[in-house]
């Protein structure tokens, strides 16, 4: 005889699935911080929007890149170094009158750096933590040789394209929106995105399902390198110069944004859009502290507290989801 159970009801449509729900924490955090900012500041206009979104954009790009790798159950510690490398490349080449080429070369360098990471992790079988720590040092070294001291110049169009406004909307807000939508489509609706989650969920299962595991993993690192390069280019536009130390702060903040955005460090579960929201939340934290008259030094303490709080929220949320799933099946194995 076969045991028939009541059809388990999935209350939510599958597009709003488990991973998607995890970015709710970041969305809520963004909303709360935004309201706090408006209350403290008294008003909100283009100037304020510019300040916050320009802060958030490079971090969001770095966080999205990091998310690709973390989804595969890896980690990319070279994010900050690739930002620096791309940043000084653009500044130096623009200084010599090759601005367009500089942007393209910087993107190509970022992709190449990611490819190197991917190849080392896949074929030399070195743990991602160590492999990217080592390459990170190499990339920073190259950047310091290219531009030992802050300097260089950046053409106006790159500034307008990053720090400018369209009407009263900052360009950076548009880019952030694009990143959220593109991130959603990429992860949920393309074979690469689904294979990425499959790989992070179980490498052996992905392999036996016929997924080219090595290619997916390498592509994740290439995507990470490319995103970091974009972050470095954006920073060049925002600061209108190059700086061989500019990427230093971005590595830990990017990982923090990924975690706040709901991506599991164990791989397989997460969203790119969540990471963008996580970056926005962190940018809002410093903005709120600034208008509250507190030193930005407090930012580190608050950021740390938010990361721990977000992790707790995710843990509670997954436990609640598991409990809810159990409640739908009160007595397993009982013929109805």
């Amino acid at each position, binding site marked *: *005889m*076969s*045991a*028939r*159970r*009541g*059809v*388990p*009801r*999935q209350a939510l*449509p*599958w*597009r709003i*699935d*488990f*991973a998607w729900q995890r970015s709710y924490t970041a969305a809520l955090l963004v909303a709360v911080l935004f309201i706090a900012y408006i209350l403290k500041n008294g008003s909100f206009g283009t100037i304020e929007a510019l300040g916050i979104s320009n802060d958030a954009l490079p971090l969001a790009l770095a966080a999205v890149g990091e998310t690709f790798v973390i989804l595969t159950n890896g980690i990319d510690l070279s994010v900050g170094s690739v930002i620096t490398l791309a940043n000084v490349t653009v500044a130096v080449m623009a200084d010599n009158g090759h601005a367009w080429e500089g942007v393209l070369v910087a993107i190509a360098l970022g992709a190449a750096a990611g490819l190197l990471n991917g190849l080392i992790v896949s074929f030399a079988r070195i743990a991602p933590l160590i492999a990217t720590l080592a390459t990170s040092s190499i990339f920073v070294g190259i950047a310091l040789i290219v531009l030992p001291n802050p300097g260089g110049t950046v053409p106006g169009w790159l500034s307008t394209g990053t720090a400018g406004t369209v009407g009263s909307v900052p360009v950076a807000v548009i880019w952030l929106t694009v990143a959220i939508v593109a991130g959603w*489509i990429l992860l*949920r*609706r*393309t*074979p690469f995105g*689904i*294979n990425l*989650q*499959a790989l*992070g*969920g*179980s490498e*052996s*299962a*992905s392999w*036996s*399902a*016929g*997924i080219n595991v090595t290619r997916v993993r390498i592509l994740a690192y290439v995507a990470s390198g490319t995103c970091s390069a974009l972050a470095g280019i954006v920073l060049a536009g925002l600061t209108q110069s190059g700086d061989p130390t500019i990427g230093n702060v971005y590595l830990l903040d990017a990982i923090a944004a990924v975690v706040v955005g709901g991506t599991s460090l164990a791989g*397989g*579960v997460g969203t790119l859009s969540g990471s963008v929201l996580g970056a926005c939340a962190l940018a809002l934290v410093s903005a709120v502290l600034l208008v509250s008259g507190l030193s930005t030094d407090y930012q580190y303490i608050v950021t740390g507290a938010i990361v721990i709080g977000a992790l707790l929220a995710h843990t509670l949320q997954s436990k609640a*989801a*598991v409990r809810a*799933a159990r409640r739908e*099946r009160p*007595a*397993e*194995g*009982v*013929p109805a």
Partner: protein
Amino acid sequence: MRPVTLSARGIRKHYGPTHALDGADIAVHRAEVHAILGENGAGKSTLVKIVSGVVKPDDGEIEIEGRRLSPGSPHDSRAAGIAVVYQDLSLIPQLSVAHNLVLSDLPLRAGLVSLGRAEAMAREALAKLDLADIDPRAPVAQLPLDQQQMVEIAKATMAQPRILILDEATSSLGVAEVQRLFDLVRGLRDRGTTVVVITHRMHEVWALADSVTILRDGRTVGRFSVTEIDQRRAVSLMAGRDIKAVFPAKRTAATTTPALDLRGVRLRRRSSPWDLTLMHGEILGVGGLQGQGQRHFLHWLYGAQPGHGEVVQDGRRLRIRRPADALRHGIVLIPEDRAVEGLHLNLPVRWNLAMATLGRRAWLGVIDMRAERRVAAAALKQMSVKASSPFQLVSALSGGTQQKVVLGKFMEARPRVLLFVDSTRGIDVQTKFEFYDLLRRLADTGVACVLYSSDTEELVGLCDRVAVFHDGVPAMMLEGDELTQDAVVGASFAVARAS
């Protein structure tokens, strides 16, 4: 006679000096269920891997419907219509059922994955297997283990295989789920699919298969129809000698000294409290349909899971809030997943054996190595562990031997109550029966043993009493003459229906 659909002849494969396969033959007819039997190391898994193209044979040929397969090509095997469901679940827990089913062949529309079509494809595949109660949108991680196993099979049938191979597919399933799986396999066979099963549960072969091939030491001993061979003969053919495939004698005298008195136990908040007494020297079986709180009961007694109730030992009430408390009172749990919970795989046997009782041989924090050597040697002997040396790594031992090491590790702690959670899962027949003997010998020294098993044959053959669980409560107790396989299966369903 139906035509042969899969035939393999003279398959050889060696890994270094060991011959995994040394001239194995197999012939499977169209639309039959064929079982491959053999002890651990007989070469069953290697044979499956060679047929599926994952492993390249040194010699021999494989034909599907008369066409020769190129050896060592998973692609060619798949194209020829072979699909394998491996022992370890190969689903991705974070993804939905639908994602998992279509993962090898994502449906695209304008370059993007069409979620609607993926869901429709999944629904269709599940409905075809009479599994419409599984929601294609649910994340696999949220399904119970048996449904995951069904999804696994559905995934294998997505490519419309001609030959479906199930490698130990029932090892994680309970009574009702095994029945459901059997129905599913019979349905597939009736629609023309050839099914090859590998299992360690002998009675399943006679319940499900039409024919068997018996392997021993990498060679085919023979191919039989299930009507022309019985279980006893099959076991002796597998072992190559007459092995004692009989359960050790049960305890004759009724036991009277209680080892543990359990009073007012409630595992689930809404259930009514119940009492149970564990006797010194008895083996108490814990059975029932899967997921009726059997595991929870043992884990609660071991302080690893919450629950309410008094545990009384020699008139004293014990406070067991964590495993350390249970161990102090001589209550020991042998976990089911020895690789994860019971052993340190990359440490030598001797260290593993010493692990549970380090403090006893330490003086000012320094371990007395001579005492440790003595203890380890004694444990190896008592458990008849087949290890080349006390310093062999545990990961190099077979599953059955590993299970003995887990047991040996806790024996030095002089347990008074031993709790076993599905300990013989995936262990070969010979080792299983050695394990049963060991268990009975332990019981005879006065240890109270509690054994949760999803294998009914084992509960009936080995245990003195069997408690059939339903919804976290031992709803029925079977002992003596009432303790038969039919009675246990019947009671499992009866208590479920009664409520």
